[in-house]
């Protein structure tokens, strides 16, 4: 089972240009959504879009900048909820920029903060029903 999001893109442009599109609010909003990002560790900002009912999200993504390496690396928290104050999803978005001969490679990693949670999901999906039924039968046979 897939446990995190990993995307790798190539753009025939300089790393500095990609960096600008990741860190300047007016450029970032052209392809992600409205935001008030600043590439400063500890800066709190948000992305805002329309509510996403199918995911029970209010459309506000609460972020805190974690890591900034100009033109190379940017990461921030990506937390969202249904609007009642509790976060349904706590995750981290990480961008890595690598200069290439004819342009720039951009790698996105988006993963859950709750690694413990990921473990449960992983176990839940993999160990599965069949194993538990077997164990149940084991219990029953003990009677």
């Amino acid at each position: 089972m897939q446990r995190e999001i990993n995307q790798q893109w190539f753009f025939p442009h300089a790393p500095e240009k990609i960096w600008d599109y990741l860190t300047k609010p007016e450029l970032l909003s052209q392809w992600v959504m409205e935001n008030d990002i600043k590439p400063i560790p500890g800066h709190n900002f948000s992305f805002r879009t329309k509510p996403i009912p199918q995911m029970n999200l209010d459309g506000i993504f609460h972020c805190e900048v974690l890591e900034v390496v100009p033109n190379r690396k940017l990461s921030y928290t990506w937390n969202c909820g249904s609007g009642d104050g509790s976060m349904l999803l706590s995750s981290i978005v990480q961008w890595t920029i690598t200069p290439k001969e004819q342009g720039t490679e951009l790698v996105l990693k988006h993963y859950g903060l709750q690694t413990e949670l990921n473990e449960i999901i992983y176990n839940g999906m993999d160990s599965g029903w069949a194993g538990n039924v077997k164990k149940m039968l084991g219990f029953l046979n003990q009677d």
Partner: protein
Amino acid sequence: MQLQNYDAFQVIADPSRRQILHMLSEDAMTINSLAKNFDMSRPAVSKHVKILYGAGFITINTVGRERYCTLKPEGFKELKEWINYFDAFWNRKLNKLNDLLNTQ
């Protein structure tokens, strides 16, 4: 009994409930045997179990006087959905970035 419809993420945001799921991922357990692993009272553990049941994470089977809890993999679908959702989300966004950069 009417169970409150908890959101999957709210359900597992609670450390005790995560621990219960952890224990059940290894083995089916009775509510009594689960309760032995916690400092809280049996009714408190039972309440967490009911919430997990209500959210579809576990099934409860009564065998004699005991109630056995087992993990229900289908309940984890919603959690898997966020990965699928945001994978598609970022793919759309990065396609847009690609278009933006290439039309300049």
